[in-house]
Structures are given as structure tokens and as C-alpha cells.
């Protein structure tokens, strides 16, 4: 019987099936996710050595009760108006030392954006979603003001600049250029958001 020439060829027709199987496995297990959220700094646990006296008019109090209602500066307020109220307070410039403020210069509201403090207080039974919405509006108020100043000084949005500065893929030359600009805007409207301990009643 004559031998056949060479080894028989292996059938590669099922290769596609095997690859499909693996592909489907990875398709199912893949989660392409990038986490994003609101960045906040908690206050350090040690109280500051010296008690700083803050004038009442420089504090913007926001209270959230257990039903999700807002008490802003002792008045009931709808959540949708919070951002504008916070902007009006921060941008007030009551003592005239703030030359970039465009607020009403109301003497009974905040003196200067660098002195203005927003104090947020919530109940233990406040829902987290309400809290996040309030946080979002307050951070949004700061971002709106910072965007305005960044547009005036550098012709672009602050949020945009900060995102580029924080992105690790940005070349370091551009980051070095952005750093003082970001810092300058942040100093114009420093985020002073104090969170008191929650009340239990």
C-alpha cells in the first residue's frame, strides 16, 4: 500500500469557534467603567488651636431636614433656587474690597468671597440623594463663579482647565503652565464648605 505523502493537515475550521467562545466570555465579563463623582475634603479631626471668630453675615447656612426640605438663612427655599442664592451670597462683596465681584454689595451679606463660608447641616434621616443634590448645587455655584472669572482672565472655562490639569495624560509642560492659572482662580473663590456634625433630632 503506498504511503500518503506528508502528514495530514490539521483542520483549522473550528479555530473560529474556539475564538468566538473566548470572545463571548470576555464580552460578558467586561465592564468598561470610569468612576466619577464629587470630590470633597473632610475637615481634620483636631480642632484648630485658635478659635476664629466669624461674623454671622459671612456664613451662609443651609439646613436639610429629614423630609428633604431646605432652610437657607432661616428661610424655606426650593432646591432649584439654591444655586442662585449661593452665587448671590458668594459674589456679594459687601465691604468693597473685592474688585472682581459683580454682586449687589449688600452690607448685610458676605464681605468678600475669600471670607464667605457655606455651612451645610443635615439631619441623620436625610436621604443621601438629597444631600448629593445639595452638594452638587453648592459645588456648581462655586464652579459657575470660577468659570466666569476664568473666562474673563484666560478666555476658557475653569472646569475645563482643571480637568486638563488633573488629567495624567496631559504633557507636563502644559500642566506647569496651567498650575498657576488654576491656583489663581481657586484663590479668587476658595471653596469654604463647612459640614457640621449631623443633628439627631
Amino acid at each position, binding site marked *: 500500500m503506498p504511503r500518503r505523502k506528508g502528514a495530514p493537515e490539521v483542520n483549522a475550521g473550528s*479555530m473560529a469557534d474556539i475564538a468566538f467562545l473566548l470572545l463571548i466570555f470576555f464580552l460578558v465579563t467586561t465592564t468598561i467603567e470610569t468612576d466619577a463623582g464629587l470630590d470633597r475634603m473632610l475637615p481634620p479631626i483636631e480642632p484648630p488651636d485658635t478659635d476664629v471668630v466669624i461674623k454671622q453675615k459671612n456664613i451662609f447656612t443651609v439646613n436639610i431636614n429629614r423630609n428633604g426640605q431646605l432652610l437657607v438663612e432661616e428661610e424655606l427655599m426650593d432646591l432649584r433656587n439654591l444655586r442662585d442664592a449661593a452665587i448671590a451670597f458668594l459674589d456679594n462683596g459687601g465691604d468693597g474690597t473685592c474688585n472682581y465681584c459683580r454682586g449687589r454689595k449688600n452690607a448685610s451679606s458676605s464681605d468678600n468671597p475669600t471670607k464667605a463660608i457655606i455651612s451645610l447641616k443635615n439631619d441623620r434621616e436625610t436621604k443621601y440623594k438629597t444631600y448629593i443634590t445639595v452638594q452638587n448645587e453648592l459645588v456648581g455655584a462655586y464652579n459657575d463663579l470660577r468659570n466666569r472669572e476664568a473666562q474673563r482672565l484666560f478666555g476658557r472655562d475653569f472646569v475645563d482647565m482643571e480637568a486638563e490639569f488633573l488629567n495624567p495624560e496631559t504633557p507636563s509642560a502644559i500642566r506647569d503652565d496651567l498650575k498657576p492659572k488654576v491656583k489663581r482662580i481657586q484663590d479668587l473663590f476658595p471653596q469654604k464648605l463647612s459640614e457640621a456634625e449631623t443633628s439627631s433630632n
Partner: protein
Amino acid sequence: MAKFAKKKDGDLPAVSTASLPDIVFMLLFFFMTVTTMKDSSLLVQNTLPNATEIKKLEKKDRVIYIYVGKPTREYQSVYGTEPKIQLNDKFASVEEIGSYILAERAKKPQELQNVLTTALKVDKNANMGLISDIKQELRKVNALKVNYTTYEGNAFNNLQ
């Protein structure tokens, strides 16, 4: 002219499928490279709230995760329906957060230990009392940088 044999009419030439494995492999490699395996399975319900003023959490190696929410249905008979804290793969009490943060921090390389962020993945229906307790624990271990992880979307949708 006999050299030009007439083609048999009717049957189409078969499309070669020889390059099919190559195409599939290409897709396979794409998904293999972008896949990130979940390191902990969720024991709690975790519907995050929406927010607009969000920042991306860059660099996954600098993040410690804390999950909060109601236990999922299969655990509700054992753990009840009150929101619970999940650290790694198990339920934990508020007091355990401090040691968990310290343990996670010790695992990271030296140069990253001061720039860690704690990502709080909290279900939107949790109560703030528990969150305040967690924040208090974080302050005790000096983990002050937190990120309230949210979805991107209109924040007022939370209230519906």
C-alpha cells in the same frame, strides 16, 4: 480555442472564511485588553445618585472603595433591610472602617499612601446618619479626601 474551458454555470464560488479566525482574534484581543475583572461582588443594592459637577477618578490604584446600601434580596433574610456597609467582600460595622482604611493604606506603595482617595459608593436611598458616622471614622484615621461616586446626570432627577 479548446483551452478556454467553459465555466460551469450556476454555482457561485464559496466565500473564503479563512480570515474569520483572524478577525475574531482581533476582537478577542481588544476585549481582553480592556477587561477589568470586578474585584469584589456587590452584596448591597447600589444605585448611585446623579450629579453634574463631577470629576473623574483618575488612577485606580489610589482609590479605596466603601459600598453602602440595602443588602440585596438574597441577604435580606439574614441582614435585614437597613442600609449596611460593605468592605471588600463582606458586611462590616462602622467601627471596622478605621482599621480597614489603615490596612488598605498599608498595602499601597509608600509614595501613594498620602494621596489616597476614599470613594464612597452609596445607594441613593441611604440615610445620612450612616454616612456621617462613616465620615467621622474617616476623619479619625486622617483619610480626608473623599469622593462621593455618582452617575453623570441631572441632579434634580434624584428627587423624583
